[in-house]
């Protein structure tokens, strides 16, 4: 099964690396789009049919937590699987994001194997 993916991170370099690692991990994507913050992400979501969102937390304009609040409160986005990719690995943050609906959490720095494992868990049962 191929997925439509949205990568949200304010670092263009990190977005490129995540995109590359998705390919290296053998993850099958049909569409892969990017956004630099939560505001851009919501604009993309309003136009594209996305299955999985990879989001950073610390971003300008609208951070990842605010983005997840918007996703959680929008019925049209109930199907979205959200994987957080962030430097913040604190228990407090993970609790908050899990409560907001995050289905997985990858901490930076990470290697392709880590991302692949998280994706396997994230998509288990979707195929």
């Amino acid at each position: 099964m191929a997925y439509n993916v949205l990568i949200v991170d304010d670092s263009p370099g990190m977005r490129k690396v995540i995109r590359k690692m998705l390919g290296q991990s053998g993850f099958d994507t049909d569409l892969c789009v990017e956004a630099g913050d939560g505001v851009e992400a919501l604009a993309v979501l309003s136009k594209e049919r996305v299955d999985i969102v990879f989001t950073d937390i610390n971003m300008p304009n609208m951070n990842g937590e605010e983005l997840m609040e918007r996703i959680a409160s929008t019925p049209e986005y109930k199907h979205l699987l959200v994987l957080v990719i962030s430097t913040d690995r604190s228990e407090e943050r993970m609790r908050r994001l899990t409560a907001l609906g995050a289905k997985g959490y990858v901490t930076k720095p990470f290697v392709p194997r880590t991302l692949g494992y998280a994706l396997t868990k994230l998509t288990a049962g979707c195929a």
Partner: protein
Amino acid sequence: MQAIDLKPLMEGAVAEVLEAMFFIAPEGDAADETARFEADWICSQLEFTGHPSGSFGISVPPQTAAMIAENFLGDEDSSLTSAQAVEVIGELTNMVCGTLLANLDSSQAFVLSPPRHDGDWFPAVSGDESIFTALSLDEGSIHVWLRIQASI
């Protein structure tokens, strides 16, 4: 705990991030290199809030920044722009600071400001609330500082 006690943690965070995502292993102390600082070095810094709060920065010579960016992006030298190198050093700063704070206290959330690139290579501060370290790399060196504003 005083800032100087965090130096091993800071060096560990630098090594952890460089090895995992940049395929670079620090080769030891490079304090002598700090005397070679020049105006074209790439300096990135950010502020963090939480427990503790403070600021954090990384400075590298341009050729070191290029190597780090190439390793991260997987680009050839010819296609890499200086803007990309600066942006990657900002992301490196973000990851090392986040790793350091997480290793310091895994229970508390923190907020990192976006990295900016107009900072000093090392702020003119002294005392227990600031620390500095320099590490040799395969090409050049990396210079890292931490300034704590709140007691920890």
